[in-house]
């Protein structure tokens, strides 16, 4: 196994492990602690990290793998998030050069913008699937409060994933090539 491929496989498996732990946290631990109102979509933040910071030709397949695991925790399924994730990753690829993760605040702001784009996209896809945009505001608005919490947590999560994917800070601005 080539060193690059080995790193890709190991990093992917560790990332899937982190996602499973976070999904258990948001689906069982937080409700057990009394947080019922909204769920923290950690899969979105992890996919955003991959889209912005990991540069590999197999990125769409990694997004698909993350969504397959997410589907075990949510009836949302794998297809909706995969579609949104790949579209967001394509747009992030064009913006990589101008995205500056110079501070925690910058990371939060970038993650918030991309999350809003994600939920606008998924709400629109669900409405298209349902054939009616009647619930667009409801679907989008329902996801917003959790995005703020996720943005606040994103510097920590990004720092963790930087280590998993061995992203150097300087290189991280333009994405690490795996």
């Amino acid at each position, binding site marked *: 196994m080539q060193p690059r491929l080995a790193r890709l496989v190991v990093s992917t498996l560790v990332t899937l492990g982190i996602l499973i732990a976070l999904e258990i946290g948001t*689906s069982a631990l937080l409700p057990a602690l009394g947080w019922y109102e909204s769920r923290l979509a950690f899969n979105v933040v992890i996919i955003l990290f991959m889209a912005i910071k990991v540069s590999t030709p197999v990125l769409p397949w990694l997004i698909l793998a993350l969504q397959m695991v997410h589907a075990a925790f949510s009836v949302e399924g794998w297809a909706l998030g995969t579609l949104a994730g790949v579209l967001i990753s394509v747009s992030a690829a064009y913006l990589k050069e101008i995205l500056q993760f110079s501070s925690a605040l910058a990371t939060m702001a970038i993650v918030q913008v991309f999350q809003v784009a994600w939920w606008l996209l998924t709400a629109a896809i669900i409405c298209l699937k349902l054939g009616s945009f009647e619930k667009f505001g409801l679907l989008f608005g329902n996801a917003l409060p959790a995005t703020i919490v996720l943005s606040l947590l994103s510097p920590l999560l990004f720092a963790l994933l930087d280590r998993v994917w061995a992203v150097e800070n300087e290189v991280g601005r333009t994405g690490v090539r795996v």
Partner: protein
Amino acid sequence: MRRLITESSKIKIVNNLVVLVLAVYGLSQKRFDLEEMTLFQTLVVEVVAPVQKGITSGRDELDALVDNYLRIVNTSKENFHLKEKISRLERDLFQMEEIRRENFRLKQLMRYSEDIGHDQLLAQVVGWDSANQFKVLRLNRGEEDGVRLMSPVITHHGLVGYVYRLGPRYSDVLTILDPNNRVDALLERTRTHGIVEGVFNHLCTLKYVNRNEAIEVGDKLITAGVGGIYPKGVKVGMVTAIDRETAGMTLGVEITPSVDFHKLEEVLVLLPRPAATAATTPPTKGSL
């Protein structure tokens, strides 16, 4: 080098296109009202659901742990052991009180289940859906326990939903709070029919009620027994607001469900009797 970069870009584009096509196909096949669990999903659920169950059932211990920590921070060394002893006793007492409450709840459920006229299975809520757009609960009972797809789920307070996705030992319930779940309901006082639909935030709406109907705030809703999923007469909720200013021929009616989904711990899954199984038909594919 240039050739390599070009080839890499080509691979990226091809990968993006293939996964996009897969996702679009998957989405076109996706149903928001009923789904069969894939082998991969079954495997993941079988592995993670016991962890979810452990965390959910360990809530009392977790509460006690947090309480203990807060107490210990503010306690001097002199009375540390004494406080610990009191804390242990309190925890025991708390657990006994929890057992007493659970006993009370189960008795209520069992008493209710005797009246409902179906075979029932007691199940525990072990998890909640991790996406905001869906209001789904995970139960610690599955196909091996006799649960079937579209089995109605209730408590003694009222209707919870139906089994949407089924694994061997766990099942997911689409609650009435989810907009994808539609319940044919009947106003108990006026016998007016309508369709109850979830609107998130622990509320529902009653649709297709003629604006001439004399319904009032406080009117109770029960299942109409139409559609083959829910039995007739199960409490659904109560009318808490009526919007008579809406345009069109129907009223805007807000419903507060009878079940407090925040406090849901145990539920009853109504099992189909052999003769009733054949009569149950799934909803149409195009429905939300």
